[in-house]
């Protein structure tokens, strides 16, 4: 599927030069322009400052995009499920922290803009060492080895002081006074633009990697490792190289993390960070190159906004994840791609009605579910923390029966209505796809 997109973009300069290039790659270019411009939408002209919240969130998006794309080098492209990918982000971060500290101390005249290279090298080195062992296996055994490695490194990060700084982690100061462009990096917005630059670089690099012999054979080994063997490739070595390179890019993300937060602790190598990569990549979609980008943007946005309103972001993320695994394993971009043939046949309009009919019941179920979750949360956790459940000046008491009844009603009623609407939608979908197929063959 990504084949088509990859191939059309594979002949950028060969067919029609710059104009053709622009026509094919406009989504990426538009995204880049948007990324450059967007902090200014929240710029406070009276104080002359950017919104700290927005810049922080945007920086996180940039880091997450690199991280998720590097994860998809394993998951989507090589078919390797890793539970310990954060190890390379974190280790890249730790290495960068030490390098920046060394630069500050005068030992290393490295401009700050180039410090992510240290992160890349750190991530690469550790990925080579750890990957040598992990890639001896594939599928479930590989996944379990990465789980073990992840937990092992996390424990090490907590225990050992010299490299990891123990529980306190390693702090650093990004204002080293060394810069290629004479920038001080005191302001977060400056770090943000550095992140944009490195994100763009990493995206291009990882995209080009998919078009190399290694990238192609990673896909091939994923789909049919026996056939890959019989075209002369050792699937183990393919896995190994792919693993090493993905570690390098994760290290870049880690370096940018260090520069943004100026501290690296054990949670950068721990399970939840690895789970985050899995979440973003899977929800965005593993089959399309841009999938993890979409996933990263969406998850960071949701996380930032939902966390402002609720304690239960993780619950929602978990439920979203399970829904995707069960009903849409191809991810959001995969779902969009499923509409492509319908759109090409000009019949997308036929689905607008069915989708609208889904909207009502879906909203009811969503509201009911959120209500139930928040009620639970406030009943136990919130009560312990002394918080109360307020919705724009109305206080809801989770100990009363009424809110629960409302939630239950919304869930059950909305759920039943949704089932009916889903059946209608399914019928409409099948009808349209049938039409597209028959007209397709006629044409």
């Amino acid at each position, binding site marked *: 599927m990504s084949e088509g997109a990859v191939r059309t973009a594979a002949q950028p300069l060969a067919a029609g030069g710059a104009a053709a290039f622009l026509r094919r790659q406009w989504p990426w270019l538009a995204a880049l322009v948007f990324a450059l411009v967007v902090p200014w939408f929240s710029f406070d002209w009276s104080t002359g400052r950017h919104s700290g919240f927005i810049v922080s969130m945007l920086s996180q998006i940039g880091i997450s995009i690199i991280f998720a794309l590097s994860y998809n080098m394993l998951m989507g492209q090589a078919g390797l499920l890793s539970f310990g990918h954060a190890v390379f982000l974190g280790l890249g971060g730790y290495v960068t922290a030490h390098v920046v500290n060394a630069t500050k101390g005068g030992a290393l005249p490295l401009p700050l803009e180039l410090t992510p290279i240290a992160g890349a090298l750190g991530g690469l080195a550790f990925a080579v060492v750890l990957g040598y062992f992990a890639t001896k296996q594939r599928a479930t055994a590989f996944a379990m080895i990465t789980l073990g490695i992840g937990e092992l490194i996390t424990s090490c990060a907590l225990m050992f002081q010299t490299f990891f700084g123990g529980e306190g982690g390693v702090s650093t100061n990004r204002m080293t006074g060394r810069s290629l462009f004479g920038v001080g990096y005191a302001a977060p917005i400056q770090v943000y633009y550095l992140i944009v630059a490195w994100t763009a670089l990493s995206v291009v690099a990882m995209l080009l990697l998919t078009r190399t*012999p290694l990238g192609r054979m990673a896909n091939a080994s994923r789909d049919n490792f026996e*056939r890959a063997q*019989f075209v*002369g490739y*050792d699937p183990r070595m393919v896995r190994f190289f792919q693993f090493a390179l993905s570690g390098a890019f994760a290290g870049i993300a880690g370096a940018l993390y260090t520069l943004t937060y100026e501290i690296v602790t054990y949670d950068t190598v721990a399970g939840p960070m690895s789970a985050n990569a899995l979440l973003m990549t899977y929800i965005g979609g593993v089959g399309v190159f841009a999938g993890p980008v979409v996933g990263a943007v969406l998850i960071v946005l949701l996380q930032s906004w939902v966390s402002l309103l609720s304690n239960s972001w993780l619950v929602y993320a978990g439920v979203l994840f399970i829904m995707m695994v069960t009903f849409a394993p191809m991810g959001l971009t995969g779902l969009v791609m499923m509409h492509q043939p319908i759109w090409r046949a000009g019949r997308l309009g036929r689905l607008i009605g069915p989708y609208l009919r889904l909207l009502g019941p879906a909203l009811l179920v969503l509201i009911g579910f959120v209500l139930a979750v928040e009620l639970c949360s406030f009943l136990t956790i919130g009560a312990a923390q002394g918080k109360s459940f307020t919705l724009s000046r109305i206080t809801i008491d989770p100990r009363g029966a009424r809110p629960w009844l409302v939630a239950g009603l919304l869930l059950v009623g909305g759920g039943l209505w949704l089932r009916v609407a889903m059946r209608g939608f399914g019928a409409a979908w099948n009808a349209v796809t049938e039409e597209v197929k028959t007209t397709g063959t006629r044409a």
Partner: protein
Amino acid sequence: MSVPALRLTDVKKSFGPTAVIMGVSLDVAPGSRHAIIGPNGAGKTTLFNLISGRFPASGGRIELHGRSIDGLPPHEINRRGLSRSFQVTSIFPRMTVFENIRCGLLWSRGYKYSFWHLVGGQRVLNAAAAQLLADVNLEARRDVPAGLLTYAEQRALEIGITIAGGADTVLLDEPTAGMSRSEADHAVALIRRITAGKTLVMVEHDMSVVFDLADVVTVLVYGQVIASGPPAEIRANRAVQDAYLGAPAEVS
């Protein structure tokens, strides 16, 4: 004969207590077309799996051009010049037809695990792939995902991938299985053309294909060779008739 392309000496294979191959010895002359026939369960595909390194033999020796390949992993055997097709079509279903063939070429053209060449811009590579595509008559389906091809097209593609790497010893496992008469005829013509000058070993059930294509026929029954020789000889062999081919029908 000079050094045989492939030599099996008393090869044995058991799965647990079950002996599947019981002492098979076989010489395949370079450049010859060698067919292995026999009833189902005789161990023909197992023999292929042993030769191609899918699993190790329980005993005996296998030599490719005089060098032992016992215990070598499949990719190593492939790099030494032996390639195979599979009974169940084995291609890369998510890639286009062109990509499939190109992947078959990569190693033999020296690209190895390169992550610094862009395959799109490799002129010689792409020209060779296009040529191979034409050889297997799949030019019209160049950009179609391989999983969407018809069965016969997929078989043709697989043969293309099998010889793409330039292997001089080719193993084809039931290449015409499941094909109609005309499809099989096309496949045979393709195989004949494309394996010219190479050593061909194939497992086949279709006797017309065997007697059309093969120089030497080996008959395998219950893991043992019961006869080996030119097709006419095999056809007339009593033991082979009893075990497999059957006597010419008498019309009364």
